[in-house]
């Protein structure tokens, strides 16, 4: 018996500690449909999917699976109902084989593993997805694309009929992306409903049948993909015209401020680049391309194997973040919750951490008065929305947390700012504020190295872009020649050989 909808969610509401994450969301998925779920980070897509997969409980609303009211309270129940989800962070055991990972909860009957049978089953699932790989290999040694396939296979082997893919292509090369799309299309033939979360508009239009757009916990539009165009979709996502997103670049580019000469590290080799005063230099690369490792190495976060770093023309031996900071380098790390902030500590403690001596006596006693003065000024300058800077940093929204991380470094006199995905998980309003701040900083002579995997952002903000892949610089484009196509072509070029 065919049903019209695999899943219907109606009026779903969810709050976290008083913050409304979902304000009454309707969503439905048909069998054999690839349905795009798009929206800015923080729009509520992940929360909605976590409710569907049983990771979160909703406050209000109804869910119907196959037309029947369903109570999804636990991940286990969701699995029984046929919901499979592949998160951005894989949940795989690196030391176990591919086959064991796929069938981790059903290794064998009566507590005994029949290895040959297990391997055969695993091989079959992967082959149906169009991937052929030795399933006895440990997961730790395979590429990201394969890991993702293992995750998908794991979900499908549990008879998932509703498959959620959360930004699956963020970590994939164009070739691998095509393979994933082929697998998605064959799932669609088999009647599986796929919910596809992505930021890449070209992908949404090439692979999806329908779309739902979310913003600030609400659905702002949706329907058949053929009824939309890119600009219309983006405007629904951000609630404003795309042209007002990126402020014009006005800073004058001056002399060299940072130069890397043939840098070698664990995840990259032979990286050379020059950053000038007043310049925003973009570094575009996929996850795992080495972009983050390069940034951390320059700052002193990871060890260098070889090569030289010059700051203001003088060679700098930077072996620790402490030394990086003293050379006037700042790092806004990619993951603010794990690397940027001490979430349990007060906002003001986080802000003054980089330069706590400035607000302390010589004996190391913190002066509350001087600290408050410095903090209040930065909070005002960056318009951090908080009632009291004594509250823990965890109480702030994503955008305001990111502003605090930036404030930490404005409190130093850093001239080189390395920003690793500075606007990830930040709402549109805060994004624009961060872009404005970047312009302000460069206008004062700072140089910014911006790492990003968002092409729009690179094209909108950078004076130059370097494309990084497999731990090396694959090419460079000036502002005039930056287009989505040309940037991606440099990534593909790196893989063509």
């Amino acid at each position, binding site marked *: 018996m065919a049903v019209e909808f695999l899943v219907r969610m109606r009026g779903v509401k969810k709050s976290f*500690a*008083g*913050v409304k994450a979902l304000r009454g969301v309707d969503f439905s998925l048909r069998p054999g449909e690839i349905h795009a779920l798009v929206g800015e980070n923080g729009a509520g897509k992940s929360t909605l999917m976590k409710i569907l997969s049983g990771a979160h409980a909703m406050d209000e609303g109804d869910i119907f699976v196959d037309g029947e009211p369903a109570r999804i309270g636990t991940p286990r129940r969701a699995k029984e109902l046929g919901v499979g989800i592949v998160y951005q962070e894989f949940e795989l055991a690196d030391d176990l084989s591919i086959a064991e990972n796929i069938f981790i909860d059903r290794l064998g009957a009566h507590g005994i593993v029949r290895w040959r049978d297990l391997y055969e089953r695993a091989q079959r699932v992967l082959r149906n997805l169009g991937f052929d790989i030795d399933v006895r290999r440990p997961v730790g040694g395979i590429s990201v694309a394969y890991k993702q396939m293992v995750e998908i296979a794991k979900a499908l082997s549990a008879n998932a009929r509703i498959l959620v893919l959360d930004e699956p292509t963020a970590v994939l090369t164009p070739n691998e992306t095509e393979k994933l799309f082929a697998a998605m299309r064959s799932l669609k033939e088999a009647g599986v409903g796929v919910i596809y979360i992505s930021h890449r508009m070209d992908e949404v239009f090439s692979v999806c049948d329908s779309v739902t757009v979310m913003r600030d916990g609400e659905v702002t539009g949706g329907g058949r993909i053929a009824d939309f165009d890119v600009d219309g979709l983006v405007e629904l996502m951000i609630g404003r015209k795309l042209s007002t997103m990126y402020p014009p670049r006005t800073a004058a580019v001056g002399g060299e401020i940072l130069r890397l000469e043939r840098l070698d590290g664990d995840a990259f080799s032979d990286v050379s680049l020059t950053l000038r005063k007043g310049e925003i230099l973009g570094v575009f690369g996929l996850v795992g391309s080495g972009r983050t490792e390069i940034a951390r190495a320059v*700052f002193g*976060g990871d060890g260098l194997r070889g090569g030289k770093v010059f700051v203001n023309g003088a060679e700098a031996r930077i072996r*620790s*973040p*402490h030394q*990086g*900071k*003293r050379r006037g380098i700042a*790092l806004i*790390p990619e993951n603010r919750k*794990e*690397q*940027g*902030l*001490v*979430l*349990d*500590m007060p906002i003001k*403690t986080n802000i003054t*951490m*980089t330069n*706590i*001596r400035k607000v*302390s006596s010589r004996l*190391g*006693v*913190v002066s509350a008065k001087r600290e408050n003065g410095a903090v209040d000024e930065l909070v005002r300058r960056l318009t951090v929305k908080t*009632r009291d800077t004594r*509250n823990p940093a965890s*109480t702030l929204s994503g955008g305001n947390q990111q502003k605090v991380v930036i404030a*930490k470094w404005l409190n*130093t006199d850093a001239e080189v700012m390395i920003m690793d995905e500075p606007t990830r998980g930040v709402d549109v309003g805060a994004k624009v504020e961060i872009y404005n701040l970047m312009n302000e900083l460069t206008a004062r002579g700072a140089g910014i190295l911006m790492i990003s995997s968002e092409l729009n952002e690179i094209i909108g903000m950078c004076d130059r872009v370097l494309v990084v892949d497999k731990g090396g610089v694959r090419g460079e484009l000036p502002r005039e020649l930056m287009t989505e196509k040309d940037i991606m072509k440099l990534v593909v070029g790196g893989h063509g050989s």
Partner: protein
Amino acid sequence: MSDAALAGRSRLALVRESLPVAVLAILIVASSFLNRNFLTGQNIFNLLRQNSGTIIVSFGMLLVILTGGIDLSVGSVAAFSSVLFATLLDERQNDAMALPPAFGLTLLCSLGFGALVGYLVAYRKMASFVVTLASMTAARGGAYMISHAKTIPITNETVNAFNKSSLFRVPYSVILAGAVFLVVAFALSRTVYGRLVKAIGSNETAVRLSGIRTDFYVMSVYMVSAALCTLGGIIESRTGVGDARVCQGLELDAIAACVIGGASLSGGRGTAVNTLMGVLILGLIGNIMVLMRIPPYPQQVIKGVIIIVAVLLQGQNKAK
């Protein structure tokens, strides 16, 4: 986050923070009903004096625990210090001038010991549990070697005078413990050092990427802990002997005190006041059980149960 949610959160935090104080207050009231002799000044001072060594050592433990580590070697280092101090005094027992070098050398020894442990934990990234498990054995062994497994009498008059004297009826050892408490409490609330130690325990990566030499701070807490063990060990020698067998199981009391005081073993959370409360709660329970004539072995069982209950209570608070 809404105002109401925030207010609720901080009120909850306040309750959690003041829980150990409340528990201690209840225990004091309860014990004064159990035994009329309890609330005498003499008994209170006895309680404080009996626990002054533990108090001092617990503050070192607190700093280590705040960074997310643990120091199992405190009892052994205290015993080692006690023996070394007594041995160094041995030659010139009646010379007041012999005190500073003997004390200084003992302190230097344990600082070196703490530096080695701290170096292995901070710079070589070894697990503190393993390193201090090893150093616990080694220090105790060293103490037996120095003392040839005998007690070493301390007949130095100045030392014995210190142990017997008091200021306005407050024993010197209690004053010393109080001073350590004040210094640690001030350090944690007002100084760069204390703030960074707590921050490291909360999120070491973020602190390191703020350009702070986290390894140096992590190493230092093991040195502070070892130094406080020296103080604690010498105070524990108040019976007038250096003894390799003293302070057995002190590490457990110190860890229990921190935990009862609400410190998180994963680091970042814990206060000086509540750690002090933790020591006193443990000590007071022991005291009550003695007054109630409970034999020693059941006492240990009850103590164990109380530690678990204390942690359970805090766990519930933590989970909102």
